């Protein structure tokens, strides 16, 4: 029966690769990435050279912007592939032609999940490999092999994030009456984790900590490290602790934290080793994998048990 799964996988991949929707999201990533890095690179050039070298700054900016842009786009890739997976086939009625043939119901869902995995990795890779070299040449920086490896390695957490959203959307799709309904619910989840939860968590943090200490600020002189800024740092340490705790189960936050670890620079200006940065963030990986399993398994079970009425 594996050949039936592969037939479905192949058709899903071809159908999506030929679709405008799929490439529109890749295009959106490239556009967002180029415009944001351009703006930031422009600002950095004006700042002169302080602390870390400009080269590192620009490289860090380029990579943190990959992460930042991906945290919005990767979920969209997952949702785009997932919301219609079952619901749209029901809407259109194609599912009745497919399931009237000698295939098991799990072949359909297996074929779709495998295709989605491939399409996600492909979209994330394509987005990164189109956008980053473009941005590098626009910024005119020298990128070391180490920098580039890290940049490409960003695609792994990004794929995990996209896959987490895919399985969420798939779960919604299996249970929804219509695909439009599935889209609305999936997008609501995205909006919740990307925009609402961060606002809620910082609101709660401010409620607990009270207003931040006054910042020693003098517009005519550069920023001086001293008494005031220690208080300030302490406050923000606590603040981010609270915010992180509230967002512990947010796939977006786990993704961002994983990425930050990947690009953490030592004092010397070189990166932590891959294993040590991942070792410190195993929880992030676990949470992302948990999302994938927590939605994939019930989607699977519910789909197998459903009947095609209507």
């Amino acid at each position, binding site marked *: 029966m594996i050949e039936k799964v592969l037939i479905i996988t192949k058709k899903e991949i071809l159908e999506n690769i030929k679709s405008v929707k799929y490439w529109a999201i890749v295009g959106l990533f490239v556009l967002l990435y180029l415009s944001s890095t351009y703006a930031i690179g422009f600002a950095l050039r004006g700042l002169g050279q302080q602390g870390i070298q400009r080269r590192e700054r620009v490289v860090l900016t380029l990579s943190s912007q990959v992460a930042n842009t991906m945290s919005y786009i990767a979920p969209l890739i997952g949702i785009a592939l997932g919301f219609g997976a079952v619901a749209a086939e029901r809407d259109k009625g194609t599912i009745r032609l497919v399931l*009237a043939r000698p295939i098991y119901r799990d072949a359909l869902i297996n074929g779709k999940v495998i295709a989605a995995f491939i399409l996600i990795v492909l979209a994330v890779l394509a987005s990164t490999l189109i956008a980053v070299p473009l941005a590098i040449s626009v910024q005119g920086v020298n990128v070391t092999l180490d920098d580039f490896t890290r940049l490409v390695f960003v695609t792994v957490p990004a794929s995990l994030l996209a896959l987490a959203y895919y399985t969420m959307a798939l779960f919604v799709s299996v249970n929804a009456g219509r695909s439009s309904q599935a889209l609305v619910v999936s997008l609501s989840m995205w909006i919740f984790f990307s925009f609402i939860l961060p606002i809620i968590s910082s609101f709660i943090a401010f409620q607990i900590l009270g207003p931040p200490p006054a910042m020693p600020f003098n517009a005519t002189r550069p920023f001086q490290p001293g008494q005031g800024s220690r208080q300030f740092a302490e406050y923000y340490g606590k603040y981010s602790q609270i915010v992180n705790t509230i967002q512990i189960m947010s796939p977006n936050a786990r993704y961002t934290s994983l990425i930050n670890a990947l690009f953490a620079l030592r004092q010397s200006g070189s990166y932590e080793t891959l294993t040590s940065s991942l070792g410190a963030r195993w929880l992030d990986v676990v949470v992302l994998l948990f999302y994938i399993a927590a939605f994939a398994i019930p989607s699977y079970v519910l789909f197998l048990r459903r009947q095609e009425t209507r």
Partner: protein
Amino acid sequence: MGEYVIETQDLVKVYKDRSGVVKALDGVSLKVPKAVLFGLFGPNGSGKTTLISILVGLQLPTSGSAQVLGFDCVRESIEVRKRVGLLPENYGFYESMTAYENLEYLGKLDGIPVQELKRRIPEVLELVGLKEWINSKVKSFSRGMTQRLALAQALLKDPEILLLDEPTLGLDPQGSTMFRKLMEEFVKSGKSVLISTHLLHELGYICTQAAFLRKGKLVAQGSIEELAKVYSKEKGYSYELLVAEDVELLVKELMKLEGVIHVSFENDKVRVRASEDISDELASLVGKFRVKAMVPISPTWDELYQFYQGGGWE
């Protein structure tokens, strides 16, 4: 497998939703013999689509059982689906794919080798009159063209049984003719077709056997002759005689026959209605009155439908 290609025993399907409980099928025991065009007739909501969906395993029965070609529709659904071509009531194609690509995908899922499909797809598209549109995207298809394509996908694997739910919906007159010819040939090759419809005037006459569904119950099934017998017992028997001369004399004679209810005539045609079967008595008059022809008039599917649907079978 017995003599029937489709058989159900006490099939029950209950839908539960927010608005309550619906008994879509209520103890249906259907028997469809081999090599016939079998009609599944019933008004909207009588359970036709539900019955067909259970046969191919798209839905599960609440109780009772069903077999197609001897395979159980629940436990051996895959075996059933290997042998059955379905045209569902509500279906759709992948709109961004061409007619060929759609059929290729579905054909592969049927288990047909790719080489075979290269030959078979143009062949079925030719049969349904879509050959010119083989490489057109389905989104450009009209309602009737889509319906033809749906028929093509059901025929693709050259199934042993066709299950067709409202197959002529949206077809133009040429399409309907094409459809009837296809079906007649299909049955001639020893295969069976189950057609669900309420369009009796359009599809009734190609069916030689039928079952009537009403509110989820099977009110009657059998060949048109068998069903007509029951009908005639209740509604009377009708005959038509073609006479060369002495029409009025014949009419007088006919009135005297026992069981005759009504006699009418027009030129050389005499119509008789009787409460019982009087074909023997009529045959004996044939010699006396130079009757050129004597035919019993069987009820049409439409009349049978009216009769069985309204006949108080609650």
